[in-house]
């Protein structure tokens, strides 16, 4: 089925708020907003952003544009950081330490860092989830 942009925008509330500091006309915020809209409305997400334009413009203390949980650590390790958060989820879920419901894990690779300095950490991500 074709992706119906109008329908998605009309029916799915945004999980990425306005007021962030990305430049007017930049393509990244609508991309992030649409990715977040792809989640099931009832699911919670843990989002990880690598250091980069997107991350520094959407989460300047004390403000955040992310309505889901968000973590940023460093430039090259969004993959490993989120793999750790996901391992926590698997472990705590198994032990009955978390309530019912699904959490999804989404990493944004930053502005190119993930496929040069961050390639090693990305391999960890594949190792965990493959």
């Amino acid at each position, binding site marked *: 089925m074709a992706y119906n942009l109008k329908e998605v925008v009309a029916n799915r509330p945004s999980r990425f708020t306005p007021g962030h500091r990305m430049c007017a006309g930049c393509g990244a915020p609508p991309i992030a907003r649409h990715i977040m809209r792809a989640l099931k409305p009832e699911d919670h997400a843990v989002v990880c952003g690598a250091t980069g334009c997107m*991350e520094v413009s959407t989460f300047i*203390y004390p403000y955040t544009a992310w309505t889901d949980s968000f973590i940023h650590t*460093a430039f090259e*390790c969004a993959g490993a950081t989120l793999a*750790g958060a996901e391992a926590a989820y*698997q*472990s705590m879920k198994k032990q009955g330490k978390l309530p019912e419901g699904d959490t999804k894990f989404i990493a944004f690779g930053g502005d190119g860092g993930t496929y040069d300095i961050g390639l090693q*950490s990305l391999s960890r991500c594949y190792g965990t989830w493959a």
Partner: protein
Amino acid sequence: MSIRERLSGNEAAATAMKQINPDVVAAFPITPSTEIPQYFSTFVANGTVDTEFVAVESEHSAMSACIGAEAAGARAMTATSANGLSLMWEMIYIASSLRLPIVLSLVNRAVSGPLNIHCDHSDAMGVRDSGWIMLFSETNQEAYDNTLMAHRIAEHKDVMLPLMVCQDGFITSHAIENIELVEDDKVKEFVGEYHPEHYLLNKEEPIAVGPLDLQAYLFEHKAQQATAMKNAKQVILDVSKDFEKMTGRSYGLFEEYKLEDAEVAIVCMNSTAGTTKFVVDNLRAEGIKAGLLKIRVFRPFPGEEIAKALSHIKAMAILDRADSLNAAGGALFEDVTSSMYVNNVHVPAINYVYGIGGRDTKADDIKSVYMDLLDIVKTNKIDNPYRYLGLRKEAQK
């Protein structure tokens, strides 16, 4: 009744981790700490623990994954040595700044280069200003006991800082000693459950962790870390008191060994304290009033208490198992002497850099330090406060 066992230092650390049963362990092997995740992954494979083991591709990712896990609401642990800690270095600072009480078992080894796999403290000294609590362990028993106390200290609401338990590579990590283990159920009760106030996996209260923190707030956040480190001192004492109630084993910020009436004293950390105690006993038998101050808590640094404990000494030597290469002296020397200065205590002090790259430090070496101190007491003269112990003679020029 406690369980009498015989374990290597690495086995002791892994056993403590098994009894703590953390939610996540992410680790990458490096000599001499390799056995810790190796033993622990066996516990995971056998279903002895509930832990999710993340077999990462590097130590940088090990610490990154521990940060992700701890921020998500889990108890996360890891182990490393030397270059592994160097590779983690960027994330070590991020872990403490995000106020995540991760616990790391650091088996001390020389940082390259040139490459050397044996004990010194250059790895630990490289992260001494990173905002981690640092506990040092003379024996396998102390490595085990410090690990059992770690979470209670790190997770305390007035602290919320990561903590590393240090022990000497090979000297204790691979040496098998008698050890008294605490029963599993008692450990479980002592360590307790971890209920973080805010965490990523709480869907009722989504949070954002690790912001861009500019001129307006970073200074305040760093000051909060400093306050937490100051708070840690009392928490360490309180937790140690509880631990003593359970085991009968007493721990403070440092151990004073025959220090009360001592005239000459050595200050050192980890396994060298064991050798020093042996020498102190021998010297005491000869009528020489020798004493030892063994640092257990290196961060937060108990400067005021150390100055007080050493105030009556006539001459003292501070032993550093890492050289700061600053033409002034080792890190422990600088911490001890500056603490004494600001507390208005003046004791003639010398520094020995020793045991680099696993160079064996024998009882005779330690004895020679006490002899040098007696000479200083007699002559009241120190011609060079920054010295080496056990260095080949031809290299001393």
